[in-house]
């Protein structure tokens, strides 16, 4: 009996520069090391059934990412979680693992938004930033180009604000995530003329749409 599980995990500093595909591969290997009976897809190029909720842009760490995985046996959540804990690489932290009952929507469909925080490393944000943020939020459209295609960034940004912090303050944003409509933090930073600034970007949480409760944060 194939059993589905959902894991909430963090991506830490050692894996900041791990691409999405490489993250997937890292999880596959972690699961194999843990000796867990991965379920495989069919076909000639059979691959393990693991689905990462939303791709994380290269260069970001993350606090509350989600993935779904399928095992060929129904094992207890505790057992699976414990087996994984022993085999995590330095860049991953497993915070929660729950068995899910099927049928259920694809995780990727459930995720609709994400919260990011950008912290400058060397210098304070330039003085005009607050105005830039206000201007951005006031615009009805912000046309950008990415990979040769034009798109409107404005509707993809649901919230944007500067927060005070210990040293230099931080920039916090909520963007849409999903097929054909993904707001990227580097695009927002570029829009605000911050692309040359050395920053650390972290995805704080994902937001899932639930029919009744509206938006549910992944770190809730």
């Amino acid at each position, binding site marked *: 009996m194939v059993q589905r599980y959902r894991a909430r995990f963090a991506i830490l500093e050692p894996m900041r520069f791990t691409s999405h*595909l490489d993250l997937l591969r890292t999880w596959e290997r972690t699961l194999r*090391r843990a000796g867990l009976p991965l379920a495989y897809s069919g076909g000639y190029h059979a691959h393990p059934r693991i689905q990462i909720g939303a791709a994380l842009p290269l260069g970001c760490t993350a606090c509350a990412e989600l993935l779904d995985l399928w095992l060929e046996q129904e094992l207890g959540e505790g057992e699976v979680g414990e087996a994984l804990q022993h085999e995590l690489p330095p860049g991953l932290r497993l915070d929660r693992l729950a068995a899910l009952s099927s049928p259920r929507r694809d995780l990727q469909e459930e995720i609709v938004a994400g919260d990011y925080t950008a912290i400058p*490393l060397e210098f304070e944000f330039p003085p005009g930033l607050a105005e830039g943020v206000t201007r951005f939020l006031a615009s009805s459209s912000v046309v950008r180009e990415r990979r040769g295609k034009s798109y409107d960034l404005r509707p993809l940004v649901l919230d944007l604000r500067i927060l005070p912090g210990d040293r230099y303050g931080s920039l916090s944003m909520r963007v849409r995530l999903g097929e054909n409509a993904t707001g990227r933090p580097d695009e927002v930073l570029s829009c605000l003329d911050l692309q040359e600034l050395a920053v650390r970007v972290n995805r704080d949480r994902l937001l899932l749409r639930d029919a009744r409760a509206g938006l549910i944060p992944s770190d809730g």
Partner: protein
Amino acid sequence: MNVTPQEIDRLLASILPRVQKPGRYTGGEHNQVVKDWASTPIRTALVFPDLYDLGMSNLGIAVLYDLLNSCADVLCERSFSPWGDMESQMRRAGVPLYSLETHHALNEFDLLGFSIPYDQLYTNVLNALDLAEVPLRAAERDERHPLVIAGGHAAYNPEPMAPFVDAFVIGEGEEVLLEIVEVLRWARETSARRSAVLERLARLWGVYVPAFYRPFYHADGTLSGVDRLWQDAPRVVLKRIVSKLPPSPVKMIVPYVDIVHNRFPVEIMRGCTRGCRFCQAGMIARPVRERTVAEILAAIDTGLANTGFEEVALLSLSSSDYRDIQKLVAAIAERYSGRHLRISLPSLRIETVSVDLVEALRGQHTGGFTLAPEAATERMRNVINKPVSSEQLLSVSREIFTRGWTTLKLYFMIGHPREELEDVQAIADLAKAVLAEGRKAAGRRAEVHVGVSTFVPKAHTPFQWVSLDSLERIEAKQKLLMRELRDPGLKLSWNPTQETMLEAWLSRGDRRMGEVIYEAWRRGARFDAWQDTLRYEAWAEAFRFCGLDPSFYTHRDRPFDEVFPWDHMDSGVRKRFLLQDYLWSFEGKPRIDCREQCFACGILPKFNNLRAGQAGDAWFCPVIQRRPHLPAQTLPPGSLAERPLEGVALEAPAGREKA
């Protein structure tokens, strides 16, 4: 004036987002070994002078990393060459070359061990030293600087890099590296001067310290001889070998980023008995020693549990010659069935690819199959001593294509001595015949990838006297192949002549070549093995600046009595044997596999004491009874260290712990 790890991290935070594939430069992978810097007395770094993507695919580095870290008082960290964009950023920001594990600047280590599998990496070695802020020239280093040692196949002709390396390891590193560590311990305890350390190193079997030797030349530029500047240095350095292959490493680092070979490797056999005349690896890696099936299976079991890799690679120079290859592959396939484990078996010898073996590999998703016929006419096969018949090749191709593979990769070589255009035409015809077999089985989906490399004569081989084929002839041969192999089912790749020239002058270079390498590096030469980055003009200018002519190295038939710049490195195979084999090639006379008949190449007498310690069939060389009147030797003849050395153990030191 050392840049601290904290400072390096601070600078990297701004740099890494700006470079390609930054995951190459971070470290922090699963199974990396991080020891406490402050409390670990002996600090070593293994430097692979190419990108992380290539270095992490190299089994040699993994073996030595494991070995060094197994010593309680030693730490071993890794470093690789940064790509051009990263190098610019590093230089601009003042970030020195650093280790991946703890981001310590390389010049804080006691020992830097460079692994040099082939000579096109030489400028990268210089660049790495420069980025590490270590003086490039060995003579300019003192007690403040790390010891710079180098090993790998390129070390068998160490002279081109002699000005820059303190000590070379010739041969296998698994035992001698521990002896080198012992010297470091002694050096620490006694605060030894650098010259004293070098003297200790020079006494170790398998270590060459170039500072104790000076070559001198005839007026025509050929080598007259090599003077010893320290009389206790061995006249000839005999390569180091281990009598039995030690346990295979099982705790390999699992990279975060994709690398060239992303899998769990096991070396199933070392050495080769085929005696192909162009092949340096086959000549210098003798004798053949196998690991047992049980050892290999155990290593794979533990290794996969430690890493989670989805593919295992069985490595050797000719894997199908491994006596139990059939049994091994079947055992692996059975043990991991249902686990979707891919088995990769590169370096298959056509004659020993049996139907059963192909059958066992079927369904293992091994990707393409690669075979290396090299030549396509009987005449050339006898010249190069790789007598695989066309019928054999076609038969094996058939077995492969009829079992579901649609792509076959074939390696051929052009530019061998006495080769005519008709021999090259035969290559094209044979490739097309193989494609025809493929089409019978797989229709239009069949593909044959034809890799035609240009033969470059190598040191320590029967062809070391040969001139490189003329560039006009090489280009004519390549044009012929391009014309003949135009079918959509055929893909042809070849070596541009500039790449060939580089390989050719480096492979048989002498110590004067060191200045050329230095000047080429100064003019921006880096990553010469990569087509896009080879700066041929930099090399041409370097030759002019040094007053040397590249064709002296590349296009000259050597007289039989010429003294070679590598003659004082002993690969165990006698020069007279190589010369005889070369003369046989004139007659087109092949030499059979030496498992069938020993040809006394020289290995046995040199290493007989090691051989005698092993069971009857552990080596492929025959057992020779020791003549009773000769004393038992603890070291092979030829190495000067026949008197006991204080502080240097010939066995593994007692303090060594197993990982």
